[in-house]
C-alpha cells in the first residue's frame, strides 16, 4: 500500500474548471499527476452513469469541476450537477463506498491555484482512504 497512487478521473467543465486547470498550467503550478482530466461542455453533462462507470472500472476518486453557482456558462447546468452529486453521494454511501471519493468543486477560470489545491488535497485524502474497494480484482 506504500506505493499506492490513487486514480482520479476529473470531469472538468470546458468554461470554468478546465480553463482554471489551464491557468494552473500556464502559471506552472506543480501538483500531483493522479487526476486525468476529461473535458465536458458543462458540469451538467456529467451523467451519473459516467461517475458510477468510473468507480466500477476501478477509479479511486471522481472529481467533478464546474463553474461557481451563478457563473455557469449555460446558466444553470451546475445546479443540476449539484443535485445529482448530492443524490449520488447518498447512493454510494448506501453502497458502502466512502463519500469522499466523489467530489464536486466549483473552480472558475481564474482559480488555477484552487484547482491545484483541490487535486492535491483529493490525492492526499484518497491516499488516506486507500484503494477503492471496487478495484477489479474481486
Amino acid at each position, binding site marked *: 500500500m506504500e506505493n499506492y497512487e490513487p486514480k482520479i478521473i476529473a470531469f472538468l467543465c470546458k*468554461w470554468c474548471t478546465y480553463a482554471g486547470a489551464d491557468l494552473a498550467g500556464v502559471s506552472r503550478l506543480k501538483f500531483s*499527476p493522479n487526476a486525468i482530466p476529461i*473535458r465536458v461542455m458543462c458540469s451538467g*453533462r456529467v451523467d451519473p452513469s459516467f461517475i458510477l462507470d468510473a468507480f466500477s472500472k476501478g477509479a479511486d476518486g471522481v472529481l467533478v469541476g464546474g463553474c461557481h453557482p*451563478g457563473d455557469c*456558462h449555460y446558466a444553470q447546468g451546475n445546479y443540476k450537477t449539484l443535485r*445529482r452529486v448530492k443524490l449520488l453521494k447518498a447512493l454510494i454511501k448506501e453502497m458502502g463506498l466512502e463519500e469522499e471519493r466523489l467530489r464536486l468543486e466549483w473552480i472558475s477560470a481564474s482559480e488555477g491555484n484552487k484547482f491545484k489545491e483541490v487535486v492535491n488535497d483529493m490525492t492526499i485524502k484518497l491516499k488516506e482512504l486507500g484503494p477503492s474497494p471496487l478495484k477489479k480484482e474481486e
Partner: protein
Amino acid sequence: MDSNSSSPRVGVFVCHCGSNIAGTVDVEKVAQEISKMEGVAYAGTYIYMCSDPGQKLMRETIEKEKLDRVVVAACSPTLHEKTFQINSKNAGLNPYQCEIANIREHCSWVHEDNKKATEKAIKITKSIVEKVKEDKSLTDIEVPITKKAIVIGGGVSGIQAALDIANGGYKTYLIEKDSSIGGKMAKLSETFPTLDCSQCILTPKMVEASNHPNIELMTYSEVESVSGYVGNFKVKIKKKPTSVNWDLCTGCGDCYNKCPAKVPSEFQEGLSKRAAIYIPFPQAVPNKPVIDRENCLYYQKGICKICEKVCKIGAIDFDMKEDIVEIDTGAIVVATGYREYPLENLTEYGGGKYPNVISGLKFERLLSASGPTGGQIIRPSDGKSVKDIVFVQCAGSRDIEEHKPYCSKICCMYTAKHAMLFKHKVHDGNAYVFYIDVRTAGKDYEEFYYRTTEEDHALYTRGKVSKIFEDGEKVVVWGVDTLTGKKVEIKADLAVLAMAIEPSVGIKELQQKLKISIDENGFLKEAHPKLRPVESMTSGIFFAGAAQGPKDIPESVSQAGAAASKVLSMFSSNMLHKEPLICEIDEDVCSGCGVCIALCPYKALEAEITTKEGKEVKRSKLNEALCQGCGTCSSACPSGAATMRNDETKNMFKMIEVILE
C-alpha cells in the same frame, strides 16, 4: 471517403512544443504507446506542431497514411483547437473529427516527475483517441443574425462603441443607468497629457450620439434580463420612471430651480447640492430632468408638488411607472466602466471622516471650471484656500493585504496632472506627491510627468503614506522618504487620495444576466488575455473600457473601436455558423417523459404530440438554433434518447475505460 466508416484510421500527432512538452513528457514514448492502439494508423511527433512545417507535415501525413481522423496531442484546445481543425479541413477531413489532447497545460507544465507525466500524457491521449474514433462527420449549423446592437453603459467607451457601430449602418441601442450619458469622463477637468478640457472633447460626442439616426439613447434604464444567444439575443430593458414626460419637457429648468429639496450632487461628488428634480450637470444629454424619488418631498411626505405647478407644459408625471421593453439584438457591448474604491475603506487615512481628505475624482470637480468652485481650489471643510497639498498615490491599489492587489493604472498620470494643475492655479503653493513607483507607459506620458516635476516643482517623495489625521484645521500626513530613510510629516490643507478603481456597482448581477465571466478582481474576463482582449467567453458579447480593467481615456476609446469592429465584422455576413456539437433526440427512443423539457435553460426542447399509425406519439422536439450544447439534457434523459453529437455516453465509457486500464 466515408469518414463515418466503422474502421477508422486515426492519426496521432504529438507535439514537443519545443521543450515545453518534451522537456517533461517522453513524447516518443507517447507516440509509441498510442501507435499500439486499435484504429491508430499513424502516431508521430514533431517539434512545433502548430508551426507552418508542423501543419504541413500533418496534412501530408493525412494524405500519405489515408487518415480519416486526427488527434493532436499538444497544448490546451482553447489555444489551437481551431488551428488544427482548419488544418485537417484543408487536408480534406471533417474538422469535427480532429481532437486535441492537452498534454501541456494539464500535464507537462504541472508535473515534475517525467515518468508519471509521460504516463498521464499517454492516458490523456488514449482517451482522446477513443473519443475521435467515435466522432461523426458534422457540418456547421447556420443561424440568422439580428443586425442590431446593444451597448450597455453610456460613458466615453459606450458612446464611442455605439457611434462606431451606428456609423457602420446598424441600429444601436445605448443603455445608460443615469439620466445622462457622459460617464466619468464628463466629470473630469482637464485630461493628460494634453490638458484639453474633458467636457470640450466629450460633449460633441455625446450630442453626436444623441442625434445619430441609428442610435437610440435609453438613459435612466437598466438591463433587466438577457436570453437567447449570439446573433439572436433578447434583452429586456427596464426604463426607470423619470417622473417627467421627456417628450413634452423643453429642458427650461424652471422645475429644478424651484424645487425646495436639496441633496448632495453626485456629479459634483458632494461638493454642492442639487434639487430632488434635477439634471446631473448642465451639459447633460438628454438635457431632461428626472425626479429622485428617494429625496422628493412629494414621494416621501406627500406634500410640495411645486415642480408640477411651475411646469408650464405639464410635463411632470408623478404616476409614471417603470416600463420594460424587449429588444432583439445580435450583439452586446458591455461598457459599464469603473468606480472609485470607497474612500471610507481607507481608515488609516481617515477616509470619509476628514472633509479635507478627498478622492481624486472630487479633486477633479474642484479643478474643473464648470465645478462648484469654478475651478478654485479650496478646503471643503471651511472654504479657505489651499497652500499645502499632499497627493497620495496607490491609495487602495497594489495592496494585497486590505484592499486591491492590482495597479489601478490611471492614477500615476492623473496625480501628475493634479499636481501640475494645482501649481498652475496656486503658484506659491507646495505640492507633495507620495508615490511608490511612477508608471508612465503611454505616449507622451513620461514627458508630462517631467513637466510636473521640472517645471512645476511638485515634490515627489518615494514612500507610502502610513497615516493621515486631523490636527486643528490642518491634516497631518505621515510618510517616509525611502530614498533618504527619513520619516516625513507634512501639515497640509488638503490631501488627495489617488483611489484604486474597481468595477461599477452591479457588475456581478449584469455578468450573471449575460452569462459571462469576471476575474478575481471583479473585472470582466476576456476570452483570451492577449489574442481576444475585447471578447467575452460568450460569443456575441464584447467589452469596451474600464469594465474590463483599469484604463485611461485613449485606451478606452481604442477598445470601444475594437469592440465595435468585432460587432461590425459579425454583421458583415447574413448567417452565423454555429458549432453542430449540440443535442440530438432519437425519436425512436424518446418516450416523451418531459424531464429534458423542464431542465433546458434555453427552452430548446418542447413537447410534441403526433399520431403515428393511429397511435398518439409523445416526444421531445429540439430547436437546433436554441440549443447551446451543454449536454445537461443528455445526462438527465432517463431513456437515453437525448444524445450529444460527438460526445455520446457510450463514447465516454470508452474514454473512462482507457484511462483506468
